């Protein structure tokens, strides 16, 4: 697995990917043709994947985002070094923190 700031990218075995994902709607790429894994609301800084692949919103244990990189790819961010990913399927997990009585996502 790979961590870039507050995003963790965890490999998922091909045969574990839920069957409906193949036909699920894909996330649209941004203006630069990237798949955006997480976007900063104010700075616009983004954890994003460059290269061919698909991103699917997926509730449940394989979510919240499933990333497919048939040829591998790179994850980039304005404030973090890029990470090269081998080809395959990945879960994309946002970091959270504990708040008594609830949780909230990390955002700084």
């Amino acid at each position, binding site marked *: *697995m*790979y*961590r*870039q*700031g507050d995003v*963790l990218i965890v490999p998922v075995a091909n045969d574990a990917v839920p069957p409906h994902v193949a036909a699920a*709607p*894909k*996330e*649209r*790429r*941004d*203006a630069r043709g990237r798949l955006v894994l997480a*976007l*900063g*609301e*104010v*700075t616009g800084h983004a954890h994003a994947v460059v290269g061919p692949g698909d991103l699917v*919103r997926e509730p449940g244990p394989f979510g919240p985002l499933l990333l497919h990189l048939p040829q591998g790819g790179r994850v980039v961010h304005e*404030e*973090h*070094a*890029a*990470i090269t990913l081998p080809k395959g399927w990945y879960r994309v*997990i946002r*970091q*959270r*923190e*504990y*708040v*008594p009585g609830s949780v*909230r*996502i*990390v*955002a*700084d």
Partner: protein
Amino acid sequence: MTITTTEGTGGDPAGAVAGAGTEAAGTSFEDVRAWRARAAAAVPADRAAAEAGVRRAYRQAGLPEPERVVWAASPREAVTLVRTTADKGASVREAVRSAPWAQERRRLHTRLGPAGWAAHWAATGGPLWEPTQALVDRIRAGVLEELAGGGTGSEAAEIRLVLLDAVLGQHDAPWLAAFPTDRGPLEGLAAVGRSAGWWWPYARVAVVCERPVALHRDEAGRLDRGDGPALAYPDGFALYAWRGMPVPAAFLAELPGLTPDRIRSEENAELRRVMLEHYGYDRYLADSGARHVHRDETGTLWRIDLPSDEPVVMVEVLNSTPEPDGTRRTYWLRVPPSTRTAREGVAWTFGLTAQGYAPERET
């Protein structure tokens, strides 16, 4: 880190937008980005453009233009104006806003099908919807609080009804982002959304509201400011918040002078948490002589025991990518009080067990 929306000029905060890569549904990624900027615009309204848009929206709904367009400096003032304007006529919100919106949604839904529509919404207005709606709800609650002292009683009910008559202008950005707006039934509505805040269409009078003068949010889009109002309108109507949590204005004024004793004596757990975050966990730990509980290669686990409250347990981690000057930023994440090791704490922040958390590369 909070970043302030500041724009030097009025008019459309999205600036000149190129229609690059227009999608089948008539909205491009550029359009969505422009609407995102408009939703967060804290610059004076472009009154001429807004009034032209209002009149156009009436005409597109098949209605005569309003006799008067009246400006308000905030939603609070707008609600008061609406309630004190005797000859304004009936609300025409249904005809001006809801009908054309429903018509466009039906048209697109029919063309794209249920799955296609869902994907289109997810790619356009969907991501904008929640943060914008949260802001709208906070503004409504703030207006209710100031004009009726809260949410109960007949006056509050009347104000709530007025708030429901509003068309949201810049805060209609999420759904406007999902439709073509340069032509067709949404032209007038979109023109107001590009140039002003909330507005109230009545048969003879339209009340239109200024945009905020200040908007401070965190990266998750939550209202967030430690030294002043997180949202402020030109007449002084304002909301105060810390990482999304509403706080009283007087409470913020107290933050710069906090002491560990004062933090310990705060009885409201929510406010005490804000105090700790503002004061700095590290400072508080040093001042109160706390000791770390556990340390491993993922970070350090700290614990602060509080009187009659659950302990504050935090992992202290170093940013993996150094800052430009070579130093590494430390940040603190609160984890459940049952956490025993730093690794368990960091793993929890990603929803994993200590055994399951093993990143081979971190940046």
